[in-house]
């Protein structure tokens, strides 16, 4: 019995042992066998299989020693694959990498320049300390290589080394060697040397590795014509950090850069435009100024015929450029008419450009075009097009009637109830005197409204324009007060209170809401109720009338603009991510301290690089004219009091204040993109009240 037990235990033990032994079968086993095969072809095929497995995400790091055995080969393709494997798995086997060092160093002396370059390129990508120690000699050698292909690769390798170990890099004088390469006879080497220096500069600006002297400037401008397209972008980017010392020099730079506008690569064109815009201001008030500016229009327009993603970058950049130079594209407004097959993000951006290009002479054509967009399919595009119509109507008083006419046509024919009512509300705010023209349409369709903004707009207009015969509707809404959206609640309160003061009616509705105020979910609306109650309980009836019935100031613009400092900042940033997303993120690698200094430089107070993609739902508005502060202190408190959605700012007052961002209490807000209220915020109550102070 006991012997039986022990024998069965033994067999279990055997089984367990077997489980922990190296597998004799399976993929890894076969690969390992292939890697040490005596036949070169089989080894090479196996390496390919290993790379294939790596590509699909399998972990083949356990094969490291066996792959490494194949490093010393004369087959270039095989060598590349082994190197690729090493780059991927060096981190997991740092102690084994040392075995490869010898081959690497040898390869940097290979008669074939391709092998020399491959070796030095790969060494820089193996981010293991041990490798760094061995890079000094090969890097020194390849930086002085007779073949430019090797030199251009070595130049980049200096930047790689710098990020791994800056001491070694500085102590060995690699930075000086790199600076010397900027004067290399081969343009590709020059370009990569500048690339590497910019990379190092980004990492540590205090080293001043890329200081452009007059001699260097001359070199750059000469190399510009010889370089590949990417090299040109490199040089142009470096040039955009250079401040010309005199108008003459600025003019010389522009002369050299202007021909690049004819380059077929759009990023060369965009970078050239940036360099020109940075230099052109020094020629202001000369006749060249206008001539050069005009030369930018056609190349800019051509950028709208590029692949969609590049077009997107361009259109976002154009918004910056036309804000600084408003007439530069006015004649070309038709280029921004959307194409039926454009992706939505392009259609929306084109609308942004169109509303900014609209002037009296082209507005009729633009409005007719926007009308057609009202009949398109995508709801977001249609909505934006309708908003654009009201934006143009408000921007250009002489075109307001045309805009209203088209909006009402879209209301009746396309049945765009919500969108049009919101747009009409904005127009009413700009032209209250036109209410007799607009109100009938608003009232006629109120039963078709579903969007809370639109319903709020409808209810607001009842109170604002003293419309009679709608008490039943108001009562109906008031009965379900608690279920309404906060902005509808707010509009409703506003209209009820106005009617009370004007006609002494609807008081019972307000009382009911007041009595149940504690059940109102939104704190802001609740506060509003209490505030109204306090105002209404004032003794002086005239005072009450004055407070409640004060007319809003007219708005005269619902298109957003950047504030001047920010605009300058974005011009410097053209074609970078910042200029596309309208963020102000500084270099990530720069130390905190200098980052702060930098932010001060551009006088921006907010420095977040949060995800700003979603700021579009605030319509990307940045309108300083909309600064509502007449008395900052009181207003701050009131803003706190009345923030019932994120946008409480209004355009009703045009008092400039020094505090550029003091009023943006919008958490979504990107740095410096202040938020005006052309988005559909019907909570006018606040503004009515704010006006008082």
């Amino acid at each position, binding site marked *: 019995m006991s012997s039986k037990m022990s024998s069965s235990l033994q067999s279990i033990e055997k089984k367990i042992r077997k489980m922990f032994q190296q597998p004799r079968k399976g993929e890894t086993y076969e690969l390992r066998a292939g890697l040490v095969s005596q036949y070169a072809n089989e080894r090479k095929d196996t390496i390919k299989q290993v790379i294939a497995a790596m590509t699909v995400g399998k972990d083949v790091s356990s094969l490291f020693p066996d792959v490494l055995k194949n490093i010393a080969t004369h087959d270039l393709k095989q060598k590349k694959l082994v190197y690729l494997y090493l780059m991927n798995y060096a981190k997991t086997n740092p102690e084994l990498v040392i075995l490869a060092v010898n081959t690497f160093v040898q390869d940097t002396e290979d008669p074939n320049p391709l092998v020399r370059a491959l070796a030095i390129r790969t060494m820089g990508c193996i981010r293991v300390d041990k490798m760094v120690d061995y890079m000094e000699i090969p890097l020194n050698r390849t930086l002085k290589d007779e073949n430019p292909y090797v030199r251009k690769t070595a130049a980049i390798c200096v930047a790689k080394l710098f990020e791994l170990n800056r001491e070694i890099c500085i102590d060995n004088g690699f930075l000086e060697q790199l600076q010397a390469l900027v004067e290399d006879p081969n343009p590709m080497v020059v370009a990569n040397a500048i690339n590497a220096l910019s990379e190092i500069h980004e990492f540590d600006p205090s080293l001043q590795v890329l200081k452009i002297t007059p001699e260097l400037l001359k070199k750059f401008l000469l190399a510009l014509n010889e370089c590949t397209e990417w090299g040109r972008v490199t040089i142009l980017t470096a040039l955009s950090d250079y401040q010309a010392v005199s108008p003459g020099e600025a003019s010389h730079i522009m002369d050299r850069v202007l021909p690049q506008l004819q380059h077929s690569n759009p990023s060369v064109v965009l970078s050239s435009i940036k360099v020109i815009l940075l230099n052109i201001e020094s020629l202001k008030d000369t006749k060249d100024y206008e001539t050069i500016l005009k030369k930018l229009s056609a190349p800019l327009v051509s950028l709208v015929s590029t692949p969609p993603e590049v077009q997107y970058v361009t259109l976002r950049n154009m918004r910056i450029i036309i804000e600084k130079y408003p007439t530069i594209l006015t004649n070309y407004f038709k280029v921004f008419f959307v194409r039926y097959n454009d992706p939505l993000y392009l259609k929306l951006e084109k609308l942004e450009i169109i509303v900014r290009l609209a002037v009296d002479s082209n507005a009729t054509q633009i409005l007719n075009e926007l009308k057609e967009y009202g009949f398109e399919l995508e709801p*977001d595009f249609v909505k934006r097009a309708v908003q654009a119509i009201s934006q143009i109507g408000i921007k250009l008083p002489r075109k307001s009637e045309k805009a209203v006419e088209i909006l009402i046509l879209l209301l009746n024919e396309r049945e765009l109830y919500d969108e049009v009512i919101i747009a009409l509300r904005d127009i009413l705010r700009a032209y209250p005197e036109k209410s007799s023209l607009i109100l009938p349409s608003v009232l006629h369709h109120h039963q078709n409204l579903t969007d809370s903004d639109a319903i709020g707009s409808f209810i607001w207009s009842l109170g604002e324009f003293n419309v009679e015969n709608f008490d039943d509707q108001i009562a109906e809404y008031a009965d379900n007060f608690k279920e309404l959206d906060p902005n509808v609640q707010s509009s409703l309160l506003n209209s009820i209170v106005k009617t009370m003061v004007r006609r002494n009616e609807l008081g019972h509705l307000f009382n009911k809401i007041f009595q149940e105020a504690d059940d109102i979910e939104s704190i802001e609306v609740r506060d509003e109720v209490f505030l109204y109650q306090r105002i209404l309980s004032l003794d002086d009836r005239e005072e009450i009338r004055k407070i409640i019935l004060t007319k809003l100031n007219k708005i005269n613009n619902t298109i957003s603009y950047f504030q001047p400092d920010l605009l300058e900042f974005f011009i410097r940033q053209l074609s970078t991510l910042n200029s596309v997303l309208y963020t102000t993120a500084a270099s990530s690698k720069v130390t905190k301290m200098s980052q702060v200094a930098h932010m001060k430089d551009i006088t921006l107070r907010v420095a977040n690089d949060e995800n700003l993609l979603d700021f579009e739902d605030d319509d990307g508005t940045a309108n300083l004219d909309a600064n509502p502060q007449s008395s900052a202190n009181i207003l701050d408190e009131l803003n706190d009091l009345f923030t019932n959605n994120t946008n409480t700012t209004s355009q009703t007052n045009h008092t400039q204040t020094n505090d550029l961002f003091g009023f943006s209490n919008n958490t979504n807000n990107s740095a410096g993109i202040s938020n005006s209220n052309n988005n559909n915020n019907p909570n006018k109550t606040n503004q009515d009240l704010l006006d008082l102070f």
Partner: protein
Amino acid sequence: MASVIHFCDSKGKSLLSRDFKGDIPSWAIEKFPFLLVESEEEPSKASPIIQFNGINYLYITHNNLYLLAMTKSSGMDTNVAQIFLFLHKIITVLTEYFKRLEEESIRDNFVIIYELLDEMMDFGYPQITETKMLKEYITQRSYQLEKRQKKAQELGPPSAITNAVSWRKEGITYKKNEAFLDVIESVNMLINQQGKVLRSEILGKIKVKSQLSGMPDLRLGLNDKIIHTDHNSNSGKNVEMEDVKFHQCVRLSKFETDKIITFIPPDGEFDLMTYRLSTSLKPLILVDCQIVTHSKSRVVITARIKSQIKKKSTANNVEILIPVPEDADSPKFQYSHGKIKYDPANSQIVWKLKHFPGGKEYAMQAELGLPSVLNTDPDVKVKRPIKVNFQIPYFTTSGIQVRYLKIQEPKLQYQSYPWVRYITQSGDDYTVRVD
């Protein structure tokens, strides 16, 4: 600059990637499919740039593939325009290598893709992206270094990289020296319901196929239509403005100062220049279309097309794509010329004409049934435009003409033959609006 490049399938799952800087954590790519779904859910916020947790995702699409570049560097140091163009360049190069770039060709050619990415980008900086140069030393076949040691020169990087002329190698020879020029103009036009042109532009291109020996220096003469661009005269209404873009072989400063187009061409085919004219044009093919909808029963479409080009010219492969309601069925057609087909998948009828001579006018009528239940979807009111495709050989809309192409090879002094062809075609946006 770009830290890593991924080729992803239609769901955003990575098929192949190359890490250039090693600063992107591995969760970043795993998150990509979810970010794509998120952006699809909110189309109004979708764009080719996504930011998530400090990672910038820049992507383009091609044949159900996503090409994705990720960067970690800040908004200041990321040249978005360059990265997007580089991604497009990858597509161009790989398409020239494998004919078609799709999921399968990536799986089949992973070794060569790794090799190419290694040459095209280093540490996030674009390097050599000319297919002609890359093909010099990155080939599908492999070679043994040992055996061909004698020809070491051949195995090295293309000598052209060391030259000032980085797009052409030395020692090219042809028995017969010829250069073919194709002047291709794509016309985009938006025509309204009344037949009025709202917007029109010509996107022109001169393609060159060079079969010339040695290091020839070429000089191209055009009529002044394009070259004498007067930047000062673009005031007033009828704006005629032009913009010319050249292949990197053209000496830009020479063009800027003397308006002369001179260049040493790459070998084989390339786009020498592109140009754009936004002048007001007459419709080349006019479509007059009436769509009468009898709701709940049928829709009747009457279309007349007129070819408004010279009598001598003929438009070929003409296609008129007319939208019909999505719920239409049982089509009946009456027509005298060409062929008409109903394409229910795209809710349109397609009228094809192989040849459409200038000055002719054809008509057709189509009747389609509609379901008896009224479609209450408000999108029924959506208007889709008619799209027109065509090609007109031996004709340029702008009137551009090649006056001469002088070919000089200082050493070889050979006789050479330039050839020119012209063609006008519809661009990707030749549309006619309907009521």
